[in-house]
C-alpha cells in the first residue's frame, strides 16, 4: 500500500490524453463533486433526518 515516488512530471497524465485516469482519481480530482458529496451526506444523514424526526413528534394536547 505504498506509492512509488512519482514526481509532478511522472504523476501527470500523458499530454495525449490516451492514458485513462482511474475512476477514483477522477473523483478525487473534481473538487465540485467532492463539494456535493461533502454537503449532501451530512445534510441528508444529519440535518434532514434529524429535523424530520423532530417534526414527527406529536404536539402535546
Amino acid at each position, binding site marked *: 500500500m505504498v*506509492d*512509488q*515516488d*512519482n514526481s509532478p512530471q511522472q504523476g*501527470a497524465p500523458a499530454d495525449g490524453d490516451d492514458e485513462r485516469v482511474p475512476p477514483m482519481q477522477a473523483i*478525487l480530482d473534481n473538487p465540485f463533486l467532492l463539494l456535493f458529496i*461533502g454537503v449532501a451526506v*451530512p445534510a441528508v444523514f444529519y440535518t434532514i433526518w434529524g429535523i424530520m424526526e423532530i417534526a414527527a413528534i406529536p404536539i402535546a394536547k
Partner: protein
Amino acid sequence: MATTFAHRVCPDTGLKVCRNAEALIKANAVVAIVFLAIGGLFGLLVALTRWPAVHILPADLFYLALTAHGADILIFWIIFFEIAILYFASAVLLNCRLATPRFAWLAFALMLVGALMGNVAVLQGESSVMFTSYVPMQAAPHFYLGLILFAVGALIAVFVFFGTLVVAHQEKTYEGSIPLVTFGAVAAAIIAVYTIASGAIILIPTFLWSVGLIGEIDTLTYRVVWWGLGHSSQQINVAAHVAVWYAIAALTVGSKPLSEKVSRMAFLLYIAFLPIASAHHLLTDPGLSSEFKIFNTSYAIYLAVLASMIHGMSVPGAIEAAQRRNGFTQGVFGWLRNAPWGNPAFSGMFLSVVMFGFVGGISGVVLGTEQLNLLMHNTLYVTGHFHGTVAAGTTLAFMAITYLVIPLIFRRELILKRWCKWQPYLFGIGTFGISMLMMGAGTLGVSRRHWDMTFSDATLSFDYPPAAFLMMGLNGIFAVLATIGGIMFVVIVVGSVLAGKSRDAEAAKTSPIIFQGGGATIAGHGGEATLKLPGTVTLVTVFFISFVLYYFVNWKFLSEVWPLS
C-alpha cells in the same frame, strides 16, 4: 497556459507567491492572532473563576467571559487562520494567481466587521448566551448579525479558494492532481461550506426572532441545526490542521506521506463523514431516535475516526521514513531523538499530532459512543475533550506553522529565538494539563459550564468529591501555564512582524529555515515508499493499547454506575 500575475519567487521554497494572496494571508493571519490573544485572555478568566480557591469573576461576568472565549477562539481565531491557510494552499502551492482578490478583501472586511460586532455585543453584557447560544436564551440582535456577517464573509473566502483551484486548473499551473496539502485544504473548505450553510439556516431565523419578526424558535430543531455549525466548525479545524501537519513535516524534515493515495482517501472520508459527528451533542435529546443517534455518532463517524488514525500513523511514519533517509537510522527511535526539536515548527507540530491523537481523539470516540456518553454528557469532560482537539491539536499546529509563515510570507526573521524554542512546549504542556484535568473532573461529574462548583447559593446543596476540587485547582495552574505560552507566542509574532530583521534572499542560503527541497516536496507528489518503520509501529501500538484500555475501562465504569441486576 499560465498568465502573468504580480508575484515574487520565494528564495526559501522556490514557490511563486502571488502578491494578492500574500497580502491576504498576512491580513487574515494577523487578525486571527489578535482574536487568539483576546479569546485566550478571556479563557484565563474562565479558568481562574472555575478554580474554587480563586473564583475571580462574579456570575454575570463569568458567563460574559465564557461567551467571548468561545466565540473568539472557536470561531474567529480559527476561521481567520484557516482562510489564510486556504489562500496559501491554493495560490501559493499551485503557483497561480488568487481568484477575485477584490471578493477576497470583501470577505475579509465582512468577517472583521462581523467578529467585531459579535465582540461588542458580548462586551455590552446583553449577549452572555455562550458559544452555543441555545434558544430560548436571547442575545442582542447585533450578536446574531455579527455571526451572520462573519459567516457570509467566510463563505465568500471559501469560494475564492475554489475559484483559485479553477484558475490553477484552467491555466495549467500544476500537473496531475493537486498536492496533498491542497487536497487537505479542499476537505477543510468543503466542511466549511456545510458548516456555514447550517449556521445560516439557524442563525438568520434566530436573528429575526431577536428583533421580534418571528414568534419563537423550536428548541430541539435549533439544537440539531446549530450543532451542524457548532461541531462541524471544529471539523474544519481537523482537516486544516492535518493538512498543516503534512506541510510542516515536508518543510522541516523533507517528508512525503507514506502513501499519498491512502492519505487522500482518508481526507475523502473526512469530507463525507466528519461533519455528522455533530450528533454526539444530541445523544440525550428527546425526540431523536436511537437509529439517528447511533448511525451518526458510531457507524458513520467511525469512518472519520479511521481517517484520523490513518493520518495519525502517516504523519509520524512519514517523518520516520524521511529521518531514516536523512541518515538517522540508529535503533528504533534514533530518528525521533535526532528530530529538530529546537525548531518550534517541528516541535509544535509533533506535540499537536500526539496530543490530538491521545487526548482529543480517544476521548472523542468515547464521547461519541451513546452508552458511554451518558457517563459524562454535558460535564466538564466535553470541555476537556475539545481542548484536546482545538487547543492542543489545532491551535498548537497553527502556532507551529506560524513559525514558518513569518519568515516565508512576512519575510521577517523571528525574534527571541530562545522563547520560540520553548513556547510550543509551554503551551503544549499547559493545554495537555487543561484537557486531562477537565476530563478527570468531568468524569467525577463536574458540570460543563456552572459558575460555582460549590453551589454556595443553591437551595439544595451538593458536594463534589474532594478530588474534583483538586483537579479544578490544578486546571487553573495549567491554564496559567498555557496562557504564558500563548502570551509568548503573541509577543514573538507581533515583535517579529513589527521589529524582526528583514529576511533577504541571502538569508535563504546562509540560514535556511526549511529542509533542502522542502518547497518542491510540499507542492509535489509521491510517497515515502517504505513501511520499515519500527518506531512508528511502536508508537501506534502504544496508541492502540491506550485506546482499547481506556475504551473498556469506561464500559467497566458504566457497568458500576448503572447496575442492571
